[in-house]
Structures are given as structure tokens and as C-alpha cells.
């Protein structure tokens, strides 16, 4: 803001229009003109002569009045000229302050105050000479001394005031500038006060007028020095730094100042002579020049503004509508930070109407401390070209009219319109984007936690099959840590031959869109880190993320489900077999019943009785058999459905009880039964286990005791995983082809149906299975048979989980 000129920029366009050089010539001419007039013999003095009391007495009253006025003509002239200068000083100060309000240029008020203070001394000077205020010394000394003091003071204040802000490069802060303005102004005002007070109160003032010397007024020659310094050094530099009309006018005003001092110092021998009047007139001129400068500066500012707007409107009428309708706020400022335009979006964003902010400094749109640093920043940029935002764009903080602040993206570009640098700021309120970013982060963390806690494995891959993410569940399923598989090909999770086919499959899908899994889901084989494979449900979805195809696979290990399915299938098959067998075997006695009862009826009609007994016996046996079948079936079904309370069962005792129940059969057949004494205790349903040994013993008695000395041995042994029990006979044995078959429902090796229904061993198998164990037979024909039962620890309900698992009886 302090500088108006870019480095290397020599001449602004407005300088052509206002032509400061012409003004300089005009002012210079004005300074020389009185000299020419004097040389031509023109008398520019006023008043003169003296009125003696004698002469006054000879005059009539009206003549006296006329003469007195003529005598005072010099005084009047002096008053008019001096007062013009005072008014000029006052105007300069007013205009400087007005301009300061707009531009915040701190040298303006200082110059204004300096001139005003000089004007104040002029006021005292004028009033004292006109005897409107009383002073201690006489007219002659006072008029000369106060003039000299005023001029010296004026020169010094201009030099100090302008010099202060010209040479102090560090004043980039508005606040510091203001402080300096106040300090300087206070100093000037104090100095003014003391000067006036000294002039008014001193009874003796230094002699300032030496009519006979070459230098009539040496004090004025002293005052010439600060003006010369201003004119030669300070003001040109000031102009270089502030290329404004005001700076020009300051510089040009040095000419009448110097002329004033010269006329006075060398020409004026007494008050109101020609040189005295010329000096006073030129002093007024030197005050008026800055007024004109400041006025024109104001005019130029507004004209530039208008012309810029007009130019924009004319050449870029669409640009205006773009600006008006732009979603982003667009604000243009000039080199001093003054807002030139403010679009609709900016109005909405900052809460200001366009008319409220255009012409004001852009720092109203910024919260502290940025608002204070902004002017300095722009000035620094204009001087050094060191850009912090211009051409870059960054996130800054904006300030709403209501005082609230918000984050905004600011991009500033720099344009030159009619010689003036204009900065265009494009502002976007990023509150929503910030919110969206936060929301995105929230969503992302939510997604991440969902992925992490998901029960199913979730794996994403890109179109080359590279693994992009691998959640916790996937780690559990496959046994890999995420870090181990990231950026590996997904086929490391598949057993061959699928692993080799997978890349081709993706390629084919991307080319043809022929999906085999995507969007469908199916059961495939997975490969764990330890090399084992397992069945898994895989459903794959496809998403496009920034032009790349990502596949998300959801994986569920279905090993257990497969096992359950297999188990269910097995049970269904068993059930089917059961129903089939039952229907067949139950029908069998019915066929017999129907057949023989029909024959019986035929015989009865024919009066035949010889076959009566045979037929009725057959019918009776079929009925009994039917009953037995139904009972056994009910028994079997109960075994499958009901498991009683599990408790420790002492095998020795249990089997001894079974033996006791079958004592009659054993004794009749003369069988030797030996039961091991120290068999272990197992956990189980005592009633069911009792049934197991009942059936096994019965089976052995029925089919395994056809030897000459039949014997049955029962024992048990503990092995590392549980207990094995055996029931051994020395009968004819069972061919190996039937070892598996005999445990099937209604399966008999014996064709004599009276012996059994073929359910007993099926019941044994079922009960042992329910206890988590299994049963098989070892036998060779002619060598007897051994039925073995195995109950494993930790499976089913067979063995307690607490110690002791097994104990000796």
C-alpha cells in the first residue's frame, strides 16, 4: 500500500493525464513572476507612511478615518494573505485526513498536522499583528520573529513528518503507523504551543530584521535549509515511494516555499513592502498546491475506479455476469488494499452488501492478526515481488460481517488495468468441504472398524489381482497377517488349479464382462497359510474407484457348515434306509398273515382240518414277530432321541448285572462267562449302556455259542485316548464280508427268523454313537468273534471333562 509502483515501473498512465510536469512549470513561473514585476518597477507594497499627531489634528473626522484605513492597508493585506495560507493549511489537513481514511497512508495526517500547526502559528502571527491579542513586545519585532519562527517550524515539521515515513521502511503495520502519526502530531502540537507561548509572553525577542544588511532577514535564510533538504532529498524520495499526485504536489510546493524564503530574506526590509507581500502570497501558494494535489488525487482514485469498472463492463460484459453468478466469491482490490469489486457470492459469504465494502480496505474481511498484517504484506509484495499467496493460493481465515470466522481457499491473481495493479482474489468457503472432509474421515474410520470387526473375511483386490486390503476376519480364516499378503496376488489364497486360472479369469471378465462369481457368489476352495484347504463361500462385488476396478470379496469359512451338511445328508440317508427297511420288514409278517388266514378260510370252507394247526401256528408266529419288530423299532427310535442323564458308570458292575439277567439262558447252554474285575468307570447314560451289553451278551449267546465248550469273555482296557471294551465268544465267527453289515437294521446272518429281528446290534451301534464312541467286530469264521467298543475321552458324553476321566474300580 505504501508503494504504488512495481519495481521497474517508471510511469503511470494517469501521469499523462494530470501532467505533473506542466504543473511544476506553472508553479515555477508563479514564483518568478513577482521578480519580473519588481524589475518592471511595479510596486507591490501596501500601506506606508506615518500619521503624526499634528497631521492627524488637521484632518477632519472623515479624513482621519480615511487616512487611518489607508495607513492600515498593509495590515489588511497581510491579514488576507496570511489568512489565505491558514485556510490552505486547514484544508490540507482536512483533505489529508479524508484521504487517510481511505488509504491508511500514515504520512498524510502527519503532513496535514504539520501544515495545520504552521497555520496555527500564522494565526497567532496575524492576530498579534492586528492587535487582536495582546503580546509583551512591540509590533515590529513580533511580526518579523513570529514569521521567521513559523517558517522555520513549517520547514522542520515537513522535513521530519515526511522524512519519518519515507526513510522508515519497517512500517508495514497499520498499528505502528498510527502510533507514529500520533507521536509526531503530538510533538508538532506541543512545539507549536511553546513557540506561540514564547512569542506572546517574552518581553524581548531576538532581532530578526536587518534592513541595511545584504541578508535582511537571516532567520528566513536559516528556514531555507529544511525546505531545500525537502526539495532535493526527502520529497523526491517520497515521490518515488508513493507515486501519487499528492506526492507530486508536495514536491512542487517546495518551489513557492523556497521562493518565499528568498524574497523575504533578501528583499523585505520592512513589513508590508513588495517582497513582504510577495513572500506572504507565495506562502499561501505553497499551502494551496498540496490542496490541489490531494483533491486531484481523490478525483483520480474515483476516476480510476470508475474507469476500471467501465472498462471491465465494456470489454467483459459476460465477465460481469460470471462474477455475479460465480459460486466463488471474487473480490478485486487495488495496490492500496481498497476493495474495487465484490461479487454476489462474496456478499453472501461475508455478509456485507457490495456498497458497504467497495472503497474500504480489504482487511475488514480478515480477522486479526491477518487484517493488520495485510497492508504490510501487499506493500512488501509490491516492493519486493515476494509473493506469499499471489499465483499460489492457500487456505486462510475469513471474517464474516457478524464477526464469525470461517476457513476459505484464497487464490489471488494480479492484473494491471490502466497502469494500476489490481489484485483479484477468488475465495471459496471451505467450511462445507472441511465438514465433508471430517465426515469422510469419520466414515472411513467407521468403515475401517466395520471391516475390522466383520465376522466375514473381506478382501479387496485390484484388476491385476493384487491384494489391497485384508481384514481381521480374513487373517483369522487364512492364517496370514494383513502385512504378509498386502500387494501379493490373491491367488496365493487359492489351491491349484484355481490359483493359476485366477488372473486369466479377471482378464477375461474385464474384457468380456463374463462373470463367474462376481455378483453371484459361490462355494470355492480356499488355501490357508499352513497349506490346508477348506471350503468357503465367496461373494465378489465390483466397484469403480477413480477409474480403477476394485473387487471386494467377502469370504466365509464353511468347513463347519459343510460338516453339518454332510452329517445331515448322512442322517437323511440313514433315515431313508430306515424307513425302507422298516416298511419291507413290517410288511413281511403281514404277507404271511394274509396268506395263511386266506388258506385257513379256504380249508374251513372245504371242511379240511389237517393243515389247521400248521396254519394257525404260522399265523401266531407272524403276529409275535410283528409285535417284536414294533417293540424293537420303538426301542431303537428311543435310543436315537433320548439321552438320559450322564453319570459315571462302573463297567464291571453294569456288565455283571446284565449277566445276572441272562443267567437262565447261560446256564441252559452251559456257557462260561468271565467278566474282568477291575474295569474302568466311564461317563454315560447307565440305562442305555446296560442295553448295549444286554444286546451284545444276548447276541453272543444266540450266535456265538455253538462250540463244544462255549465261553464268553468280557473285559476293558484303558488307552491313551479313552477306554476299549470287548465282548468275545468262541463260536463259529463271522465272515469278514458281513462285519459291517451286521450292525445294519434288520440285518441277520441267520435265516432263522425266530432267533431275532436284526435290531439288537443296530441298537448297540446307535447307543455307542450317541456316546461319541464306535463299535466294530473282529472275527474269522471258526475262530469266534470279538465285538469291540471304543469310548474316547473328550468326545460326546462318554468321558468327564473334569478329572478323573477314568478310574479303576
Amino acid at each position: 500500500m505504501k508503494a504504488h509502483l512495481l519495481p521497474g515501473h517508471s510511469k503511470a498512465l494517469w501521469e499523462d493525464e494530470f501532467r505533473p510536469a506542466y504543473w511544476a512549470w506553472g508553479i515555477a513561473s508563479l514564483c518568478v513572476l513577482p521578480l519580473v514585476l519588481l524589475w518592471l518597477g511595479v510596486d507591490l507594497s501596501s500601506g506606508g507612511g506615518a500619521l503624526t499627531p499634528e497631521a492627524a489634528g488637521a484632518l477632519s473626522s472623515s479624513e482621519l478615518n480615511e487616512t487611518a484605513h489607508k495607513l492600515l492597508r498593509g495590515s489588511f493585506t497581510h491579514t488576507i494573505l496570511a489568512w489565505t495560507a491558514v485556510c490552505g493549511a486547514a484544508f490540507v489537513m482536512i483533505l489529508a485526513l479524508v484521504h487517510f481514511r481511505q488509504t491508511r497512508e500514515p504520512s498524510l495526517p502527519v503532513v496535514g498536522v504539520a501544515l495545520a500547526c504552521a497555520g496555527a502559528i500564522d494565526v497567532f502571527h496575524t492576530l498579534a499583528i492586528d492587535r487582536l491579542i495582546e503580546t509583551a513586545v512591540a509590533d515590529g519585532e513580533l511580526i518579523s520573529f513570529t514569521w521567521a519562527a513559523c517558517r522555520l517550524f513549517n520547514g522542520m515539521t515537513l522535513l521530519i513528518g515526511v522524512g519519518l515515513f519515507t526513510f522508515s521502511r519497517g512500517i508495514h503495520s497499520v498499528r505502528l503507523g498510527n502510533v507514529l502519526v500520533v507521536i509526531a502530531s503530538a510533538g508538532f502540537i506541543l512545539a507549536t504551543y511553546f513557540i506561540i507561548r514564547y512569542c506572546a509572553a517574552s518581553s524581548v525577542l531576538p532581532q530578526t530584521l536587518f534592513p541595511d544588511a545584504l541578508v535582511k532577514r537571516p532567520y528566513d535564510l536559516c528556514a531555507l535549509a529544511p525546505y531545500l533538504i525537502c526539495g532535493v532529498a526527502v520529497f523526491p524520495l517520497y515521490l518515488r515511494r508513493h507515486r501519487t499526485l499528492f506526492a507530486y504536489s508536495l514536491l512542487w510546493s517546495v518551489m513557492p516555499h523556497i521562493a518565499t524564503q528568498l524574497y523575504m530574506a533578501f528583499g523585505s526590509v520592512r513589513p508590508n513592502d513588495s517582497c513582504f507581500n510577495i513572500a506572504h502570497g507565495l506562502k499561501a501558494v505553497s499551502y494551496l498546491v498540496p490542496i490541489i494535489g490531494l483533491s486531484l488525487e481523490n478525483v483520480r482514485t474515483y476516476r480510476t475506479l470508475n474507469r476500471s469498472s467501465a472498462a471491465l463492463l465494456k470489454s467483459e460484459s459476460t465477465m460481469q455476469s460470471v462474477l455475479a453468478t460465480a459460486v466463488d466469491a471474487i473480490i478485486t482490490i487495488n495496490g492500496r488494499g481498497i476493495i474495487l469489486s465484490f461479487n454476489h457470492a462474496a456478499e453472501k459469504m461475508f455478509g456485507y452488501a457490495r456498497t458497504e465494502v467497495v472503497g474500504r480496505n480489504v482487511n475488514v474481511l480478515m480477522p486479526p492478526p491477518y487484517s493488520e498484517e495485510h497492508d504490510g504484506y501487499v506493500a512488501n509484495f509490491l516492493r519486493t515481488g515476494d509473493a506469499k499467496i499471489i499465483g499460489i493460493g492457500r487456505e486462510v481465515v475469513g471474517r464474516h460481517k457478524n464477526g464469525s470466522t470461517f476457513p476459505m481457499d484464497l487464490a489471488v491473481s494480479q492484473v494491471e488495468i490502466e497502469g494500476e495493479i489490481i489484485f483479484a482474489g477468488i475465495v471459496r468457503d471451505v467450511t462445507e468441504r472441511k465438514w465433508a472432509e471430517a465426515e469422510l474421515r469419520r466414515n472411513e474410520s467407521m468403515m475401517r472398524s466395520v471391516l475390522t470387526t466383520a465376522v466375514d473375511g473381506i478382501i479387496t483386490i485390484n484388476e491385476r489381482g493384487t491384494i489391497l486390503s485384508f481384514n481381521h476376519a480374513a487373517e483369522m480364516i487364512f492364517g496370514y497377517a494383513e502385512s504378509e499378503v498386502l500387494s501379493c496376488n490373491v491367488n496365493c489364497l487359492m489351491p491349484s488349479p484355481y490359483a493359476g486360472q485366477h488372473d486369466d479369469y479377471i482378464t477375461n471378465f474385464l474384457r468380456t464382462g463374463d462373470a463367474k462369481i462376481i455378483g453371484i457368489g459361490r462355494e470355492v476352495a480356499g488355501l490357508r497359510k499352513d497349506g490346508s484347504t477348506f471350503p468357503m463361500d465367496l461373494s465378489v462385488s465390483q466397484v469403480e474407484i477413480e477409474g480403477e476396478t476394485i473387487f471386494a470379496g467377502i469370504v466365509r469359512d464353511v468347513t463347519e457348515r459343510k460338516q453339518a451338511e454332510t452329517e445331515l445328508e448322512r442322517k437323511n440317508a440313514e433315515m431313508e434306509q430306515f424307513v425302507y427297511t422298516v416298511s419291507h420288514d413290517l410288511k413281511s409278517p403281514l404277507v404271511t398273515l394274509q396268506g395263511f388266514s386266506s388258506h385257513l378260510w379256504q380249508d374251513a370252507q372245504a371242511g379240511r382240518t389237517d393243515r389247521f394247526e400248521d396254519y394257525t401256528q404260522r399265523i401266531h408266529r407272524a403276529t409275535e414277530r410283528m409285535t417284536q419288530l414294533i417293540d424293537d423299532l420303538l426301542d431303537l427310535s428311543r435310543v436315537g432321541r433320548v439321552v438320559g442323564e450322564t453319570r459315571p458308570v462302573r463297567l464291571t458292575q453294569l456288565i455283571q448285572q446284565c449277566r445276572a439277567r441272562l443267567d437262565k439262558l447261560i446256564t441252559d447252554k452251559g456257557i462260561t462267562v468271565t467278566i474282568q474285575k477291575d474295569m474302568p468307570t466311564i461317563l454315560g447314560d447307565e440305562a442305555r449302556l446296560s442295553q448295549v451289553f444286554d444286546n451284545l451278551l444276548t447276541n453272543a449267546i444266540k450266535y456265538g455259542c455253538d462250540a463244544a465248550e462255549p465261553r464268553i469273555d468280557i473285559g476293558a482296557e484303558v488307552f491313551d485316548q479313552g477306554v476299549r471294551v470287548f465282548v468275545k465268544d468262541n463260536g463259529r465267527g463271522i465272515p469278514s464280508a458281513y462285519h459291517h453289515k451286521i450292525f445294519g437294521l434288520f440285518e441277520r446272518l441267520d435265516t432263522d427268523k425266530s432267533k431275532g429281528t436284526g435290531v439288537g446290534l443296530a441298537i448297540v451301534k446307535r447307543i455307542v454313537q450317541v456316546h461319541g464312541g464306535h463299535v466294530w467286530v473282529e472275527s474269522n469264521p471258526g475262530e469266534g468273534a470279538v465285538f469291540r467298543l471304543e469310548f474316547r475321552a473328550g468326545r460326546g458324553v462318554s468321558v468327564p471333562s473334569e478329572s478323573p476321566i477314568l478310574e479303576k474300580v
Partner: protein
Amino acid sequence: MNNRLVRFLLVEDDDDHAELIQMALAENRITNKVERVKDGAEAMDYLRQTGAFAGKPRPDIVLLDLKLPKVDGHEVLQQLKTDESLRTIPVVVMTTSQAEADKVKAYYNHANSYLTKPVDFGRFQKMVKDLKLYWGLWNQVSA
């Protein structure tokens, strides 16, 4: 050939059923020569004329129950029909099973007929009559 006695081999584990079938056959004067075995293993021994059945004549027709001890009817049928020397012997499956699976399996193994053992006498008679009719047709074809 019509003058010769037709030799039946009845493979039936149930004594009562065997008696009923033989009575029905007799009443319908189909044959007077029925040999009976009680399980699948015996049936194969008989057909192959081995073991206790060495020297037994080859049967002209086999009446085969499916649910048999040791070796079941399906297996007997399969062995019989895959044996070059035996497969021309017609086999009539006679069983209580009405299960579709049994019928399909029996015909798949080249059973010549499949008869369900009826539970009422009338139908039993009809079954045997069907057998007779079948047998007549069979002889016509093979003659």
C-alpha cells in the same frame, strides 16, 4: 421242452412266504419242481453248483426275494446276470418292497420281471397267474 418239468429256484428266507409261494404255484399247476434256498449266498452256490449244491440241476427260472440274509437279492441278481453261463436264466423278483429304487435297480440289473408280494390272497393268486402268463410268453419267445 414243454413236456419237461420246469425247475424253479425259489430264493426266499421266510419259510412262511416260501410255503405260500409254493402253494400258489401248485394250485396254479405251474410246476411241480421247486427248489428253495434261504439266502443269497446259498442261491449263488446253487446256481454255480458248488458246495452243498454240487450236482444240482440248473434251474429254468429263479424267483428271487430282495431282502435276504448275508447276500441280498440285488447282489444275487447282479452276479447272476453278469455271469456268462447264468445270465440267460430268467429272474422274477418277488418282494414286499414297493420302493421305486428297488424296481429301478432290479430292472437295471436285468431282472426279467418284478412282482410285489401282495398282502391279500386274491392278489397273491393274481401274481402267480401273471407269472404263469409271463412264463408262457417267455417259452414262446425262447422256443
